[in-house]
């Protein structure tokens, strides 16, 4: 049930009238997009690095954020995931609905998210997800919350997040990410390192509310596609 916007008629009209009087805009949609297109954009939009350098930068940035990064190739992926899960010392994991079954070693307890409650997810010690994109310059991991990346809640509540990132999806700059995904997502989360705060005397402390541990598996798949 939604609350109807009671003030729609009065204040909406009043605010829009005041804005129109202030801006005196009469631009039609063609003029508007022409004006938009004339916005100067001389900042760096495309990357300058080769693939190997770009992926190396991504890994370097992730490590600066204290993320744990291991590299593997496609054939070694499932085994690497199992190794990382083992090394974490944890047992109970959440899996997004679309997680491939060979990523889910039977040595561990798996809770596949088919609408799990927050309390149920909170009981799990870790989560494994895929990712949409990596942005090397800032070490950012992008989730568009597909079936492989899971609902927003599954990569949030567990304290330990293992994220699989394919090297072919790593771009150098933020504008390259925006150029790459013209299909606009209904939801997106950009993660640049584990949860942190500097609110007390500007001292950076890791792990406030989000996962305290971010683990990334970089899958070297360039040239094999």
């Amino acid at each position: 049930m939604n609350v109807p916007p009671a003030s729609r008629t009065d204040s909406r009209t009043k605010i829009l009238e005041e804005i129109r009087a202030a801006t005196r805009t009469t631009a039609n949609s063609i003029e508007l997009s022409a004006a938009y297109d004339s916005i100067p954009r001389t900042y760096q939009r495309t990357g300058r690095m080769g693939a190997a350098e770009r992926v190396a930068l991504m890994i370097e940035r992730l490590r600066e954020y204290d993320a744990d990064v291991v590299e593997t190739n496609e054939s070694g992926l499932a085994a690497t995931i199992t190794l990382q899960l083992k090394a974490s010392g944890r047992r109970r994991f959440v899996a997004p609905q679309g997680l491939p079954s060979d990523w889910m070693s039977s040595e561990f307890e798996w809770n596949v998210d088919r609408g799990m409650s927050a309390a149920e997810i909170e009981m799990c010690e870790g989560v494994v997800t895929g990712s949409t994109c990596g942005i090397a310059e800032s070490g950012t991991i992008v989730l568009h919350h597909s079936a492989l990346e899971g609902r927003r809640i599954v990569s949030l509540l567990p304290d330990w997040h293992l994220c699989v990132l394919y090297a072919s999806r790593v771009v150098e700059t933020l504008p390259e990410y925006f150029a790459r995904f013209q299909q606009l997502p209904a939801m997106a989360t950009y993660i640049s390192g584990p949860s942190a705060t500097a609110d007390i005397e500007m001292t950076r402390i890791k792990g406030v509310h989000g996962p305290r541990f971010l683990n990334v598996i970089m899958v070297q798949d360039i040239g094999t596609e």
Partner: protein
Amino acid sequence: MSHTGYHPVLDPALAPPFPKAVLPVLRNPQLRKNVAHAIDVIQAKRARLVTEKADWQELRTSGAAIRDHALANLGTYLEQFEDRCTAAGGTVHWAADAAEARRIILSILKQESASEVIKIKTMTSAEIQLNPFLEAAGVKAYETDLAEIILQLGNEEPSHIVVPALHVNRSQVRDIFAQSMGLQNLSDDPKALTAAARSYLRKKFLTVPTAISGANFLVAETGAVAVVESEGNGRMCLTLPRTMITLAGIEKVIPRFQDLEVMLQVLARSATGERMNPYTSIWSGVTPGDGPQHFHVVLLDNGRSSILAKKTERQTLRCIRCAACMNSCPVYRQTGGHAYGSVYPGPIGAILTPQLMQMNHAQSLPYASSLCGACYEVCPVKINIPEVLLELRSQVVNQERRHPTKFFDPMYLGMRAANLAFSQAWLFHAAQFFGRMGLKLFTGRDGWIHHLPSLGGKWTQTRDLRGLPKQPFHTWWAARQKETK
């Protein structure tokens, strides 16, 4: 009693003028030390990350142009945002002023039968004084940003828009947490304090079904809201509750999703000196099965559209609330934020607050600046703050000199006399003649004036004045012309 020693007033309608409000801070060395330390750390981080960015000036140019374009077509983009957000399952409300925004939010909470609400840090909600209003109406608001928890539990006021508790140091935080969370053995290690906040809030996140956020950006193209944060408290509030209310100033809109490629780059570097803030969340309306299933956006005007109408002042609305201006300001560094008597302190506050008050309050703020221009230099969307400060100063003077009580004010009397003298050459020369005679009485043997009586004493109290030369320029010039002929 607050832990930092005094309690400031952050309501611009009630706050004392800046020169008076600043006194308790200037007498509080601990507070000044806390502020200076925090500012130095952020400044250094910002400087390092801006230097590494070769295209920084180009990003600033684009950032300013995107914001200007959005403001010039604000009506169109707001309607577009409303359309898309509504189509995606959200409900958009319009609030002309603070009181209306508070009423709308309360009525949504009442419909949800909410007795508690969790909040992501939003300065806009502080602007409309939402928390005390909700409290009085029986809804307990829980702040979830670490700095905001410190303020809320310690009964402190925000002094910065990005790190609002920067005036509180670790031992003061310890005392606040120990007292309000009942943790007598808590240490003052920031790590332990952060852990205390984490466990204090965990249960709230999992149980409170309603949340309030601000917005860093509203995307017209997709009807999306973007929230940037560091701790994950934002993601918690955006994901766990059943109902989500976003309060956003009408100026927050940007035209397209892609514009975030500029805004996010300049915001993180300017605000916290990071290449990117740890978490950015972007969502359009409601997604079945994921996150809040009721979503409301309250668009707040509260004086903003009147700023839009003015040529020089419009740029104020470009602001993306990064706080780089206050971090770079030599005045803010000495005074901290409370003296500004508003939730928006520093240079941006000095121009924004009086304008939001329609120039009826906070008239002392445009003077709380040395006009050094550091704020303009660091602003990621190139707001020429000194230019707006000067414009507002002229408005304050115009307001004041027309006021009947100021008619015999010595300064305005003097200004009117000067106005008259400058209007006729003979009057000017006569004034000069008598002025020189008068000043000669006060000029020392060294050619300097050290003391002046009455009003003039305000100048010589702190500085000397050069004595006048033997003859004025025009006399010298006239004599020279005669000689060469």
